């Protein structure tokens, strides 16, 4: 399968790239695509793109692809990638910044709503699960 990616200098310095770098506090171009983050990611089997691919697309300013991916919602900030990256890129922070880009728009793009759960389900869940989920997946 061949994939065509159109790159342009405008994308590499787009407002999206600048915003992700600012919110995450990371220099995206520090990543040299070794793949170590993806190799150890416990959530990788459930992601539609791997952590190193997320970083690559972010470097290239591929905003639409990133914002439409499920992987940014599957990452649980377990910090395995962060502690292993040889270039000290904080991948979890980059993914948080991409989530923030979606959650901070005016549209309620929340990925979790307590109204969707049965009362029994809610009662069975400890507060630590609910609060963590709401903090990560809602605006």
């Amino acid at each position: 399968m061949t994939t065509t990616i159109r790159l342009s200098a405008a994308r590499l310095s787009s407002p999206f790239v600048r915003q992700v770098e600012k919110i995450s506090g990371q220099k995206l171009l520090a990543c040299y695509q070794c793949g170590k983050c993806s190799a150890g990611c416990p959530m990788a089997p459930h992601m539609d793109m791997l952590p190193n691919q997320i970083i690559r697309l972010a470097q290239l300013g591929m905003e639409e692809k990133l914002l439409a991916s499920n992987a940014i919602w599957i990452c649980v900030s377990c910090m395995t990638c962060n502690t292993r990256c040889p270039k000290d890129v904080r991948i979890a922070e980059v993914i948080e910044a991409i989530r923030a880009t979606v959650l901070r728009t005016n549209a309620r793009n929340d990925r979790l709503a307590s109204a969707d759960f049965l009362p029994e389900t809610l009662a069975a869940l400890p507060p630590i699960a609910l609060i963590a989920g709401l903090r990560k997946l809602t605006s």
Partner: protein
Amino acid sequence: MKLAYYPGCTLKNHARNFDDTTVASMARLGVEVRELERWNCCGTVHGLASDNLMQRAAPVTNLIRVKESGAGEFMTGCAMCYNTLKRANQHMRKDAAALATLNDFLSLEETQYAGDVDVFHLLEFLRDRVGFDKLAAAVTKPLKGLRVACYYGCMLVRPREVAFDDSESPAIMENLIAALGATPVPFALKAECCGAYHAVGRPEIVADRTDKIMGSALAHAADIVIVSCPLCAHNLDHKQVEAKKHHPDFHGLPVLYFTQLMAIALGCDDAAQHFELHHVDPRPLLTDRGLA
């Protein structure tokens, strides 16, 4: 010795067993654990966005409460609370501008925060202040022959700046368990994520993690898994139902907080154990080993 204590929300309901066995076993070690008179939810997760200082307000308010209690340090057993409180504290200590902004925001507080409270995890306190030799000396019921898989998950060991042991291969819980007379077993996935808050919206992901983590514990014939986090406990114990649904050959084990084993070994009253809160009842196994 007196020690200020932050239990965290879940220890007051789903993880009462963690709370009560912490207080009971520390008393046996001569440490009077004093719960803060006022405390609030720590926020459970450390906000990773560099421009969102609001998420520091909840943890820092707790640090202010510790100061107001007259203590200069405090302990928590919950791994997520520990991580959130410790990281917020580190942030306040190294970023004077953020600290000033937060103090302005919390201007109705009578006390200003100045980065002057130390955060301890219970395991760290036991190792560095009490000492595992002293713990071993206080054991009245050694956990002989009990094979224990020590699960760390994420929040005790990552990121490195909050870890009080090696991030990839920690051993502090194994050392504690050995002091109680039990046998720690090798456990390859001991620091691999349990799926965390996906318990809420994506239980099938947690089921997958629970299956793999339990498999890793069973590979070395563990009898039980111990944890230090109510979310890990929920996922590894209560989500075994889900794991069985998705993985028909799944085998589970009882899951206990490390403080529950301490309480047994130190001869504390069983009332602190709240075994009714467990999904897999550990009593048959403990009775079989002469421990309950």
